[in-house]
């Protein structure tokens, strides 16, 4: 099953993970892997998720996550994994 990669980058604040995870849970998007770190006050997270059970079109998820990001002052990107697989694997 093809995965989706969600990246969150921006100034650290309380509740970033909670906000993103709540949204994913509400839309039946399952988180399979999270790695997260804070570097010089900057929050940087990558999630590998399975969006195959989500009823929402992919474009809507991308847009809504982008909006959530704007609300909490971080940049949230949601991309199909193949762009990374293709670019970094032969």
């Amino acid at each position, binding site marked *: 099953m093809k*995965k989706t*990669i969600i*990246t969150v980058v921006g100034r650290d604040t309380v509740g970033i993970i909670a906000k993103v995870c709540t949204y994913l849970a509400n839309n039946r998007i399952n988180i399979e892997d999270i*790695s997260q770190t804070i570097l010089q006050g900057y929050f*940087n997270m*990558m999630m*590998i998720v399975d969006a195959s059970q989500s009823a929402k079109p*992919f*474009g809507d998820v*991308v847009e809504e996550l982008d909006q959530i990001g704007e609300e909490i002052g971080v940049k949230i*990107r*949601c*991309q*199909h*994994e*193949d*762009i*990374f*697989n*293709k*670019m*970094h694997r*032969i």
Partner: protein
Amino acid sequence: MINRFEVDETNKMIEQEKLDVRTVTMGISLLDCIDSQLDKVNEKVYKKITSYAKDLVDVGHEIEVKYGIPIVNKRISVTPIALVGSAACKTAEDFVTLARTLDLAAKEVKVNFIGGYTALVSKGMTQAEELLIRSIPQALACTDRVCSSVNVGSTKTGINMDAVKLMGEVIRETALATRERDSLGCAKLVVFCNAPDDNPFMAGAFHGVTEADAIINVGVSGPGVVKTALEEVRGQNFEVLCETIKKTAFKVTRVGQLVAQEASQRLGVPFGIVDLSLAPTPAVGDSVAEILEEIGLESVGAPGTTAALALLNDQVKKGGVMASSYVGGLSGAFIPVSEDQGMIDAVNRGALSIEKLEAMTCVCSVGLDMIAIPGDTTPDTLSGIIADEAAIGMINQKTTAVRLIPAIGKKAGDTVEFGGLLGYAPVMPVNPYSCAKFVSRGGRIPAPIHSFKN
């Protein structure tokens, strides 16, 4: 397993280094639209384009969202109109009706350019081809999105000097016909030698007669990505330099391949080629000139420029070829002046001349591109420049092209504005001595010998 560094690297390329897919171009054959009645040709052309390409822009947008990669342009190329209209068009005005139809179809499916208002006359011109060429100034003046190209020579046929002479006049007339808009018409007109059938880039894209009914060709970009990668290896030797360019070109091209395959599958149209070009834009940091300067030149145009460009072009191809199953089109670094801030700066500081640009075109795609020249440049001089460039292509078995803009009412040192991706350009001086007797001889330059290479 995907790791964070790779994800961050890719996203940094997209966000900060302006990595994008420059164009997804659908090639559509119009050979089955040929008819002896002009109305019918127009009707069939409009119907075929608007039905084949109706989902092109939407599909392009869906792919952008899915992978988070911008696809800057969605475009269409069609069979050379000189062939499509040959049975029906008896006058230049008849051909202009086809240009209008292409323009309407492009607007209907919301693509920003449609290429293929083209004549392939590398050896001789039919009556219809000559009519089409003579109609170009009017066609480009009364349409917004139509792009035109004329192939005047090839390695196999030599150079059709009658067509070269005619094109000097046509470029001048196109500049006059669009003088209100800084001679913008000339930005949509390319004169080729060895034109490829599958080029996705405007203004020279057309759908060659060797192609299938419809096809998806993709042009990648990424000067900013190469420039940033080279900043990391500043001062290191040529081996490291070349390896870095190759690796970067591989990554950039893989994105193009991914987008091409996905677009092809979603549209139900076969995948044609990925064009491995480094295509700059006027945006800061999206410049081929800046790459050359990062390689070690104080300014583009300095001695060493041609060698640096040759190296860059070759490494981009070496890296890109393995990343895509089919490579074609122009595939090389573009060196337009108006579309590259680094080139504009080099011209403004007096470091770069047309003669140096001509030398650079010997080692890269595609030719003298988007160069504004004084408005009083004679048609004969334009023909002479075209002949020089075509000769480089013919002898070196490569594609070369000329896209010059005689800026009417302006002289060397002035500036012309085109806006958007076409950018702006300083008007560059042209050698004032005449070649009128040379270009007026008539006939053609014979095909070159393919042995005794020196």
